[in-house]
C-alpha cells in the first residue's frame, strides 16, 4: 500500500464520523426530490443555497474557532451590525461596501482576540460581551430600525442576481470562501496550528508554534465571516437588519458539531461543516414543504425548538462516540 497516495476520502469527507452527515444529507435530498414536485427545481435549489449561504459562511468561521477549543457567541450580532454597515455603504457599490463591512466584522473579531489572548478572558465571556456590544452598536447606528439599501447601485446584484445568468453571486462568493479556508486548514501550517492548539494548547506552545497568532486568526476569521454574512443579508433582503442574527451562533455551532468537529477542538473539517450546515437547512426546507402540503402545520417558532433539538441529538451522539474513543485513548 502506498501511504503517500493522496487520501481523497479523508480530504473531502473529513473524519470518519462525518460520513454519517454526508449520507444523511444525500438521503434527505433524494427523499425530498422524490416526495415534492418543486424540490429539485432550480428555484428551490437556488433560494435554498442563497438563504443558507449566510449560515454556511458563519459556520466555516465558527468551525475554525471551535477547532482551537474556543467558541464565538458574537457572530449573530456582528452579522446584524455589518448588515447595517453594508446598507449604509451600499450607495458606494458592492466593491466598497463588501470589504468595509467584512473589515468591521474582522474588527469585532480582533476585539474578541485581544480580550481572549491578551486579557485572558474566557472565550465565551469575551464573545458574549461582544455579542452584547455589537447588538447595541447595531441598534445605535441604525436608530433601531431597518436600513434600506440603495437599489440604484450594484449592491443588490450580489444577493439577487446571477453570474452569467446561472449561479447567484452569493453562492459563488461563499464557495470561494469555503474553498480558500478549506485549503488553509488542510494545506498550510496555520491550519495545522489551529488543530494542534485544540488538541493540546500546552503542547502547541512547547512545540514552539505561533499559538497566539493562530488564535487571533480564528477569531478574526470568525468575525470576518460574520461580516460577510451581514453583507449577504443586506444584499439579499435589501436592507440592513439590526435585529437579525438572534440564534445564529447556535445554528453555526450546531452545523460545526453536526459536521463531526469536536467541541473540545483538535479535530474538524471544513467540507463536513458545510455539509452540516446544509443538512440543518435542508431539514427546515423539507419541513416547509410538508407545511405546504398541509401534512403538518409548524409555525416559524418551531425553528428554534427544532434547532435546539437537533443540537441535542448530535451532542448525544458525539458524547457517546467520545466516551468510546476516550476508553480507547487511555488503554493505548
Amino acid at each position, binding site marked *: 500500500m502506498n501511504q503517500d497516495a493522496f487520501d481523497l476520502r479523508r480530504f473531502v469527507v473529513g473524519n470518519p464520523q462525518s460520513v454519517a452527515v454526508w449520507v444523511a444529507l444525500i438521503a434527505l435530498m433524494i427523499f425530498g426530490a422524490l416526495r415534492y414536485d418543486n424540490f429539485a427545481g432550480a428555484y428551490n435549489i437556488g433560494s435554498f443555497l442563497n438563504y443558507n449561504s449566510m449560515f454556511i459562511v458563519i459556520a466555516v468561521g465558527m468551525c475554525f474557532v471551535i477547532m482551537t477549543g474556543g467558541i464565538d457567541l458574537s457572530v449573530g450580532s456582528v452579522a446584524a451590525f455589518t448588515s447595517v454597515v453594508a446598507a449604509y455603504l451600499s450607495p458606494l457599490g458592492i466593491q466598497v461596501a463588501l470589504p468595509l463591512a467584512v473589515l468591521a466584522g474582522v474588527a469585532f473579531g480582533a476585539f474578541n482576540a485581544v480580550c481572549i489572548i491578551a486579557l485572558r*478572558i474566557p472565550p465565551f465571556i469575551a464573545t458574549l460581551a461582544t455579542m*452584547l456590544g455589537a447588538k447595541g452598536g447595531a*441598534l445605535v447606528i441604525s436608530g433601531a430600525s431597518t436600513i434600506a439599501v440603495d437599489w440604484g447601485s450594484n449592491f443588490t446584484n450580489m444577493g439577487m442576481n446571477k453570474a452569467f445568468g446561472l449561479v447567484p453571486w452569493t453562492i459563488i462568493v461563499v464557495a470561494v470562501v469555503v474553498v480558500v479556508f478549506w485549503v488553509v486548514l488542510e494545506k498550510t501550517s496555520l491550519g495545522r496550528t489551529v488543530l494542534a492548539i485544540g488538541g493540546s494548547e500546552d503542547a502547541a506552545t512547547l512545540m514552539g508554534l505561533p499559538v497566539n497568532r493562530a488564535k487571533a486568526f480564528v477569531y478574526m476569521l470568525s468575525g470576518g465571516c460574520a461580516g460577510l454574512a451581514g453583507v449577504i443579508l443586506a444584499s439579499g433582503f435589501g436592507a440592513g437588519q439590526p435585529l437579525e442574527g438572534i440564534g445564529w451562533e447556535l445554528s453555526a455551532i450546531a452545523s460545526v458539531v453536526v459536521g463531526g468537529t469536536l467541541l473540545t477542538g483538535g479535530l474538524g473539517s471544513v467540507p463536513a461543516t458545510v455539509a452540516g450546515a446544509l443538512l440543518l437547512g435542508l431539514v427546515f426546507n423539507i419541513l416547509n414543504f410538508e407545511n405546504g402540503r398541509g401534512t403538518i402545520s409548524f409555525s416559524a417558532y418551531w425553528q428554534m*425548538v427544532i*434547532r435546539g433539538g437537533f443540537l441535542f441529538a448530535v451532542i448525544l451522539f458525539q458524547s457517546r462516540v467520545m466516551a468510546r474513543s476516550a476508553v480507547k485513548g487511555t488503554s493505548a
Partner: protein
Amino acid sequence: MTARDIDTPIRAGSAWKPFLRSNGGIVALVVIVLFNAMFTPNFLQAQTLFVNISQVATIAIVAMGMTLVIATGGIDLSVGAVMALSGALAPLIFLSDWAQGSPTLGLIAAIALPMLAALVCGLFNGIMVSILRVQPIIATLILFISGRGIAQVLTNGNLQTFTHAQFSYLGTGRVLGLPFQGWLALAIAVVLFLVMTRTAFGRYVLAVGGNERAAALSGGPVRRVKVGVYVICAGLSGLAGLIVVAINSASDAARNGQLMELDAIAAAVVGGALLQGGKAPIFGAILGAVIIQLVKYTLLANGVEDEVALIAKAFIILAAVYVQQARKE
C-alpha cells in the same frame, strides 16, 4: 512557614490595591450612588428606590442561582429562556377556562406548574453536564435557544395581557412599604447563604468547583451536586420569569428574560464568583445585581439610550472578569 506572610503587602502605600480588589464591588457601588446623588435628578426619592428594587430583584434572584452554578465551575446560559418559558406558562394556565372556574386552584397551578417546568429544564441541563459530560456552555445553549422557542410555540408568539390581582402581587405587592419581590430575593439569599455555609450540600458545591476529582474521591456525590445547582438555578429563573410577568401584567415570550444570562453572569462575577469555581458569594450576587441595575438606571436617567447601555454592560462584564483573572495571577 506559610505563604501568607509573603502575600501581605509590606509597604503601606500599596495597600489600596488589594483593598480595591477584594472590595471592588462595594467601592463601585459607593461611586455610582454618589454620582447619582449629585447628578441624577430625583435619585434620592422613594419612587426611584422602588423602581430599582423591583428591577434588581429579578436579576438578583437569577444571579444567585447563577452563582451556585458558577461555584461548581459551570455556567448556565439558559436562564433567560427558562424565564420566558415559565412566564409564558403562567398566564396560559390562569387564563384557561378551568382556572377561571376554580380561581384558587388555578392560581396555585399557575405558579406551581411553571416552576415545575423550570425545574425540569434545570434537570435537563444538569443531566447533560454531569452525566453526559457536555461542556456547560454547549449543554445550556440548547435550552438557551429552544426554551424560548417552546415558550413562543406555546403562546404562538402572542403577547398575553391580563389583569389578575393575586398573581400580580408577585410583582407589584408591597410589604412594609417595599416591593414584595425585594423581600423575596432577600429571603432566598438568606436561605441560600445558610445552605452554603451550614449544609453538606453547600460544602460539596464548593468542593466540586474547587477540585472535582478530590471531591469525588472523598465520597462526594459530584453528579447529584451538579444536577442540584442547575435545578436550583433553573427554579430561581422560573420564579424570576413569573415576577417579570406579574410586574408587566403581560407575558411576552420574545422579550421576557432576554439577555438575562448576561446580567446574571455579570452580577455573579461582579459579586466575586470565580469562573473556575470554588466560591459562592451569595450576597455578593445581590451586590452585583444592584451595581448592574444602578449602572443601567444611571445611564437611562441621564439620557443615554438603551442601546448604549448594552455596550456599557458589555464592558462591565469584561472588566469584572479581567480584574478576576488578574487577581488569580
